[in-house]
């Protein structure tokens, strides 16, 4: 199969075959990072711009390492160093970047739909590295890869995603991604954090964490943001961790081999108890490792790596 997408914008626009191709490619890419010389010449001469309007350490570093391991030239632009602070619009900044002929623009932006807007106007491939509360496809793909690696396959699994679903692009992308690949997703959290109409994504919803984690294969906890208290979403971290946090006591209700995931950064003691993050079945750090492999696969596929290889 050839990969023909110019852009990676969300999980909705990827087919099952495309997702499978990305995961298979990522599995092969993973080996490169285990070599002593972690670099292949595949994307030599390609330029990857990491355009981060929102602070990020993990995702930006992950894309940066992915680009470098494939020998692409990568550079980072953050909101504070871009012309945005001088009043330039997103489109103008992006058109200026385009004029320097990059091959891929990886964008993170606090506004949902910003990558879609650029994809419709610019020639380079756009990879969405997180847009507002909308989508985070590379995160969902690395989560799919990590679960598949641990469980053999995704189809038929039950995945609980717990926390602030409303504000989470990871929850949205994983609801769509895991459902598309044949798993069943259960979302849980306080009612204030469950958005209207989310069931339309094919997921089920509960407000009871213990019910959510019973009989699931994977528990994915979401980061709780302290500033959400101002919006009356929850009363205190103390109460949140007691009722909705993942503790050893709650884990007793789950399967013995349940996998624990978290997109990071984690708040130990809030959504996840101190000792649960280091649980034997916690695969939180595997997610980070696989993040590099998935992003290598995405850069390779959108730049036509597969086509070039075929041509050779």
């Amino acid at each position: 199969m050839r990969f023909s997408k110019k852009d990676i914008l969300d999980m909705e626009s990827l087919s099952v075959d495309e997702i499978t191709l990305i995961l298979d490619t990522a599995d092969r890419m993973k080996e490169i990072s285990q070599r002593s010389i972690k670099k292949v010449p595949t994307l030599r001469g390609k330029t990857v711009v990491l355009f981060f309007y929102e602070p990020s350490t993990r995702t930006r570093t992950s894309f940066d390492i992915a680009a470098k391991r494939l020998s692409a030239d990568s550079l980072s632009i953050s909101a504070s160093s871009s012309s945005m602070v001088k009043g330039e619009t997103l489109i103008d900044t992006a058109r200026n970047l385009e004029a320097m002929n990059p091959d891929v623009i990886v964008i993170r932006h606090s506004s949902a739909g910003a990558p879609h807007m650029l994809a419709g106007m610019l020639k380079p491939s756009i990879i969405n590295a997180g847009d507002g509360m909308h989508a985070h496809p590379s995160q969902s793909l690395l989560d799919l890869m990590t679960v598949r690696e641990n469980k053999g396959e995704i189809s038929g699994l039950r995945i609980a995603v717990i926390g602030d679903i409303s504000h989470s692009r990871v929850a949205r992308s994983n609801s769509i991604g895991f459902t598309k690949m044949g798993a069943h997703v259960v979302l849980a959290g306080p009612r204030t954090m469950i958005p209207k109409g989310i069931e339309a994504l094919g997921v089920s919803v509960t407000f009871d964490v213990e019910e959510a984690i019973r009989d699931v294969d994977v528990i994915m906890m979401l980061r709780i943001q302290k500033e959400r208290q101002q919006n009356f979403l929850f009363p205190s971290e103390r109460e949140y961790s007691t009722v909705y946090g993942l503790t050893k006591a709650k884990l007793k209700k789950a399967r013995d081999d349940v996998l624990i995931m978290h997109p990071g950064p984690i708040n130990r003691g809030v959504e996840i108890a101190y000792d649960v993050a280091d649980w034997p079945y916690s695969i939180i750090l595997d997610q980070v490792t696989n993040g590099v492999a998935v992003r290598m696969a995405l850069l390779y596929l959108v730049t036509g790596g597969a086509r070039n290889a075929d041509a050779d």
Partner: protein
Amino acid sequence: MLMRIKGGRVIDPGNLDGIMDILIANGKIVEIKKEGMAGDEYPEARIIDASDKIVTPGLIDMHVHLRDPGHEYKETIETGCLAAAFGGFTAICCMPNTNPVNDCRQVTEYILQKARAADTVRVYPVAAISKGSKGDGLCEYGELKEAGAIAVSDDGNPVKNSQLMRRALEYSKGFDLPVISHCEDLDLAAGGAMNEGGVATRLGLPGIPNAAESIMVLRDIALCELTGVSVHIAHVSTRESVRAIKDAKKRGIPVTAETAPHYFTLTDESVKKYNTNAKMYPPLRSGQDREAICRGIADGTIDVIATDHAPHSPIEKQVEFDRAANGIIGLETSVSLALKLVENGVISMTVLVEKMSTNPARILGLENGLLIGRPADITIIDPERLYRVNADNFRSLSRNTPFNGWDMKGKAILTMVEGKIVYQDE
């Protein structure tokens, strides 16, 4: 100069309906007679052939943003008036959220002076309820009325303080200035970019619940009941608001209401792909809401169709969705969209004329109707005209419409203000 509008179906709700000729002299209607009966004695009269057309009292859009003074790159009084004429309107009310806000005699007079210079359609300035539309003190309604204000509204900046709203209703009554209310609970709507619901959830956009509107509609109905002074609810978008207004009317509370063509035509599905030309306040709602709006128009709950014409340039619209300005232009598509309601059997042509001419005139206290001796403010509509909307041809300075490229059936083909043809389709 003599003119004879010949052979059209003349509809003036409660007054006329039939094939008639209208004779106009010196800007006034001088004769209205059954076909062939009028004007025979004036062979020199210029003939306007209206056969197979609808001839109505001039249409009135009581909710328009002209952006002048302050944002003349979006619209000026001159271009807004041209757009109104092009859309079949002989009169428009312009909202006070300009810069400076129309909260004093000077701004009202400036608008009227510019409108006189534009010399196209009638412009009725709506002044602010509160100084600067800031919600902390009444404007001087006496002076504003004298300067030419037709109504008061803090459109765009809802009156949060219920005491201020009560006093505005009571005080305005002394000057016969209708109060037009923009109903929005700012806390419930805070941060919202579109209608709350499945589409917003999928797009990851913060939602605005229906209740953000209906809570304030219910408050204003309560204040209307308390004071006995009527209130006009602007741009109704939700089924809950329609129900509240319907109940209030049944109980005899003097509330009136308007909606805009986009609320009876589109739903929040139009926001998909982050289309900023589908972003406005209140936001496009669900299919259920759209149906309730249509029913409300049909059963008389909603008195008026007004456009909420809100011009914006690409500077405000070609940006990230949540940062884009609210509002779309509507003057040049309103009649065609309203005619779809007639085409679909939601309302009759007579009711359309009521919603777009008779009722706004009644609410605003304007003389209206095709009567002998009245100024000849007349709109001629061709209900069969097929065309495709091309925003590039709009008279408005702005292009922010979700209807560009739509195939329409029916449009205004002639607009006449005081006997002067201000727009005629070639």
